[in-house]
């Protein structure tokens, strides 16, 4: 292969070498338990405090509102289940969207089994939630609205402020899964009326296995993981000090570089979209053209199937994804692409390319060239394309 091009940064990112460097001392030197009293434990505790402060500052939050978890999935589970438990007396109705990550959707399904009722709001053809429908869905027994900040597949950014205001007006808690948005977009929890927010370090060049849930002071949700008195008694388990330190460093890097980095990514992304749309026929851009994550491009190539495309791209050294990485191995096409109205066979032929800070124009050119050839080849093998051509000839 000529090149290695990693365009799957929405699935996971490379741990930044400076992040890894910040983590290293906490494995075999400063390995003390952060809850202990002796000096190397206290050093761990201080490192955690610094990381928590750094992260809080990126959101306009208070340090004591940041609770570390094992990742975005745990944060999502916690937010939903603990709210259900704590506010179940007030009501048992939850509102979310049809295009949430499975960490939200499957948790909702679990809550439905436990007697809660969940309304799944539709999105338009660009993946933007239908606000009017959301408004109408609000009931006296609605206790929580959970809508993701930006979608992991098609990159569409949701009208979070409007949803936050709506929730606030009705005295309903508002949670947002910001796993994809954190570090890519400026977020202020107060201005946007966010009560809870989930995030995951490995999406922003931090380590895997660490995330956080922001919980606004006063929100009375309980623990999801019970045990020791860590995280102000709300999240038990020995603190994962190296990972927490890594997350702090990654957040610092992501936010200090945000403007410049995302501007560069946006430019390259638009160049990528432009070339793909122009040079590959029967191609559709999925997601909102403007309100999308700076690093996300998502295409559907008619008549071909995604997995074949991915394997062939891999053989050219290109890492990409089709639908969501978590569901690969599954036979169903992405629920997000179906929700924006794509027919099944087109939903099956989608390609997600998500850029990173180090993606170059040469990378993009290489990917476009290779994709072009592969799509052509797969179409030449496709019975759907054959049928389509024949239909055209007949006209």
């Amino acid at each position: 292969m000529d090149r290695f091009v990693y365009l799957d940064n929405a699935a996971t990112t490379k741990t930044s070498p400076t992040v890894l460097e910040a983590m290293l001392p906490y494995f075999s030197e400063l390995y003390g338990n952060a809850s202990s009293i002796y000096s190397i434990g206290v050093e761990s505790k201080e490192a955690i405090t610094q990381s928590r402060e750094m992260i809080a500052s990126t959101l306009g939050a208070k340090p004591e509102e940041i609770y570390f978890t094992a990742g975005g999935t745990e944060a999502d589970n916690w937010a939903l289940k603990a709210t259900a438990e704590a506010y179940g007396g007030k009501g048992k109705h939850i509102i979310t969207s049809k295009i949430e990550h499975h960490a939200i959707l499957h948790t909702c399904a679990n809550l439905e089994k436990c007697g809660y009722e969940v309304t799944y709001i539709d999105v338009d053809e660009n993946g933007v939630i239908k606000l009017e429908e959301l408004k109408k869905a609000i009931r006296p027994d609605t206790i929580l609205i959970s809508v993701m900040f930006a979608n992991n597949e098609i990159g569409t950014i949701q009208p979070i402020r409007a949803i936050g205001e709506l929730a606030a007006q009705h005295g309903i808690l508002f949670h947002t899964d910001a796993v994809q948005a954190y570090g890519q977009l400026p977020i202020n929890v107060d201005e946007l009326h966010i009560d809870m927010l989930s995030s995951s370090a490995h999406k922003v060049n931090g380590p895997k296995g660490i995330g956080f849930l922001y919980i606004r002071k006063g929100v009375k949700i309980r623990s999801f993981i019970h045990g020791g008195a860590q995280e102000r008694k709300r999240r038990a388990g020995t603190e994962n000090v190296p990972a927490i330190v890594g997350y702090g460093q990654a957040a610092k890097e992501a936010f200090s570089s945000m403007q410049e980095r995302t501007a560069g990514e946006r430019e390259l992304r638009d160049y990528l979209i432009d070339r793909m749309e122009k040079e590959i026929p029967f191609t559709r851009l999925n997601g909102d053209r403007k309100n999308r994550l700076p690093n996300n491009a998502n295409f559907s190539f008619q008549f071909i199937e995604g997995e074949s495309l991915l394997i062939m791209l891999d053989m050219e050294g290109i890492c990409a994804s089709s639908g969501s990485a978590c569901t690969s191995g599954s036979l169903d096409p992405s629920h997000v692409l179906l929700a924006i109205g794509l027919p099944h066979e087109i939903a099956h032929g989608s390609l997600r390319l998500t850029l990173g800070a180090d993606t170059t124009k040469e990378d993009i050119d290489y990917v476009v060239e290779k994709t072009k050839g592969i799509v052509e080849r797969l179409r030449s093998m496709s019975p759907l394309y054959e049928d389509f051509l024949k239909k055209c000839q007949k006209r």
Partner: protein
Amino acid sequence: MYSEKVMDHFQNPRNVGEIENASGVGTVGNAKCGDIMRIYLDIDENDIIRDCKFKTFGCGAAVATSSMATELVKGKSIQEALQVTNKAVMEALDGLPPVKVHCSLLAEEAIHAALWDYAEKHGIKIEGLEKPKSDIHEDEEEEEEY
């Protein structure tokens, strides 16, 4: 995830294409499930499959099983071709991941569908051949669920 044989047949699929005025054509699967296979047969007067081509919309395993299935039936008699089961295709490919077993069933079914088409066109009945289902996903083995 895939064996070397699968990867070989995916990267260099044998017998891709169409056969003009084929003796029989069979299409199975559906776009909803993400795989469609079409098999063309050129059958001579002695009921020998002289040529066989395929087109497939689907994953790596779908392409590889189509390719292998065409290889296995080429040069065979109709009765021999009927013996080419999904197991035979899988074995020839050194196995498939559990979630991909249905692709081999689809390949078996595609051949049966092409043979059925041939039989219909020629007004004959092929012994042991049942009308193929166009969609085999009902038979699919589900992974253990909790």
